[in-house]
């Protein structure tokens, strides 16, 4: 199928998904993994990520009739909903603490298996959690979901220039947190 046909196919799918259950399921299956992975990368914990993923798709069901756009825009819309859902989840300090605790336990149990990777993961989540939610979002979308700055800007309703400077600030903060522990993240 050429690109034009694919685009037309996606467009039809988006239109049908509002009223056609089969089309919605198709859309859901295409995007579930990306949403779940994004939630894991933001929350560092799969149970919480599954809960938030469920919330995200329930919101999608409720609001899909309002969505007008391409499938790419749909993906960005999903990330926006997921970002809000994750931030809401993290807003409760107790939840954040629980996540950190679970993270530590996981790291301790994994340390023999993965060694440096598990240790890095623990440090990374502590460093990431110390950032503002917006910075956390930008870091995750950029480095784990591999979105371009323009795409992140669309997800966050901002402009690429602002995202670029916020990314630089977020990285500077992470560097400060991580630099003492990892020589591969220093100048």
């Amino acid at each position, binding site marked *: 199928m050429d690109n034009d046909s694919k685009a037309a196919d996606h467009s039809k799918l988006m239109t049908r998904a509002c009223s056609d259950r089969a089309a919605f399921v198709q859309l*859901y299956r295409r995007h*579930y993994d990306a949403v779940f992975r994004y939630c*894991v990368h933001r929350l560092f914990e799969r149970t919480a990520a599954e809960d938030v993923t469920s919330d995200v*798709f329930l919101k999608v069901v*409720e*609001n899909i009739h309002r969505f007008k756009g391409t499938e790419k825009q749909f993906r960005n819309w999903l990330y926006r909903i997921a970002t809000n859902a994750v931030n809401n989840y993290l807003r409760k300090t107790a939840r954040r603490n629980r996540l950190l605790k679970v993270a530590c336990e996981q790291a301790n149990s994994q340390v023999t298996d993965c060694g440096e990777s598990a240790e890095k993961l623990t440090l*990374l989540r502590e460093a990431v959690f110390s950032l503002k939610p917006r910075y956390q979002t930008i870091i995750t979308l*950029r480095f784990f979901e591999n979105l371009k700055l323009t795409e992140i800007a669309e997800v966050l309703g901002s402009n690429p220039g602002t995202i670029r400077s916020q990314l*630089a600030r977020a990285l500077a903060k992470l560097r400060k947190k991580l630099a003492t522990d990892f020589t591969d993240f220093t100048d």
Partner: protein
Amino acid sequence: MNDNERQFENFVSNIKFDDTPDSDHRNKLEQDLLRVLTKQPRHKQQPLKIWRIIMKSRITKLAMAAAVLIVGLVFLVGDGQQSLYAKAVEALEQARTVHVVVKEYRDGQWFKDHEIWYDREAGIVEEECYEGRTDVRIDNGRYEWRYAVGGELVAQLNSYRDIDEFARSLCTGWLRYDPNRVPSGDVVIDGAPCEMYVLSNVGDKVSIWVDGKNHVRQFEEARELRGQKTESRATVEYDVVIAQNRFSPKFGPEVKVINPREWIEEQYPLDTAIFTRKCLGFVFAVHELKSYEKGLKYIVCSTRLSEQTRREIGTGHPWTYYGDSKLFDRYDGTGTYDHPILLGRVTHDGVRISWYLLLPSDNRAKRSPGCDVDVIVNTANQLEEKCKAEGLPTREKLRLNIATQESQGSKAPVREIVKQVYSLGEKLDPIVHSFLLTEVVTKPDGEKMQAWRRPVIRLSEEEYNEGVERRVQEWLELMGLNK
């Protein structure tokens, strides 16, 4: 990707996440979603939340009502026919004047909430009424005046808003959504048969009546927020006679017509400030710093665009935000003993005045003759762009370490300070962009929120005082200084 990004990417590249999706969860969620889809009604859900957000602002609420009649409703009928929205716009364009009265139902009675007069040639007048007070905005296309009826100040600004644009921007809210036709609700209004349309969502309902000429004649809103029900009704008349002097008001000698920015700058002049510092195109200044018993201090600061910056960036709209300054506890590892809490601030046309209480963090503060806090100045919009273009930072931190003006020795200063700030808020409330009274109030359900004197959240002096005193007590208790 720059070096920083590449280094971070290298760092995360060998971190293993447990992020493989679980098919059981995926399948279960799919079934749950299908059940929800099955139960969900086929008709479109109306996003009344938008309405709720828009209607939070009294001014917007007022203007929203204007938009309804100016632009009409977005009633899409589909099938290539002209939408009801388009017909309503067309009908409206034939009207020379429009008059709207919005009432709210409270305590078993209907009270006038706001009233709008619109004359296509002469401009717009908006009045909003609450708690015995009436605020007015008049825009005749050349000037805009804002004032509270009976107040001593009237703001006169150049008209900055195209009324048609004003209407167009407002019509992008909930009126875009497709209301349901409800024939059982058809009524006759002033002799004209009107069709009823309804937007509804859980706890919220908006009913609209449109006459045979496609004029919106009435709309009602019933909504429920946190268990509290509110109802409002707007009635709309077309081509009524409106006295032309409404759009060019005359004020008596007891009223002072001011440019708010100049007035604010006169009240807080730089030449009598006790501290000034040029920073990022702003001038930061401290106008007052007084210490009281038990280490409590009161400080008034301002941030204003320098004249040179004004010339360079060409300021215009008084609502534009160029940045500001904020006081913070010092976090540089050397310790701090003054903890600022924001009492209020006024922002208008590149000038911000902020009032703070400085609370002691330890016993050193009680002995300190001055204040020692961080000030962070940040830029926004055109000023931020200018700084970036010139390779300057867009944010800067100052350490504010200055001596107090005098020792007051007052035993109960909070009440007096609160009174003073509140009184200024009352005076400036309807005429400036925004006036914040206290940063955080606790609502009955325990949720903390920002409390602005305007728009919409009505805060009495008593509530404000209680909010500030509670914040002071909470801090002192936290620091173990409440003895």
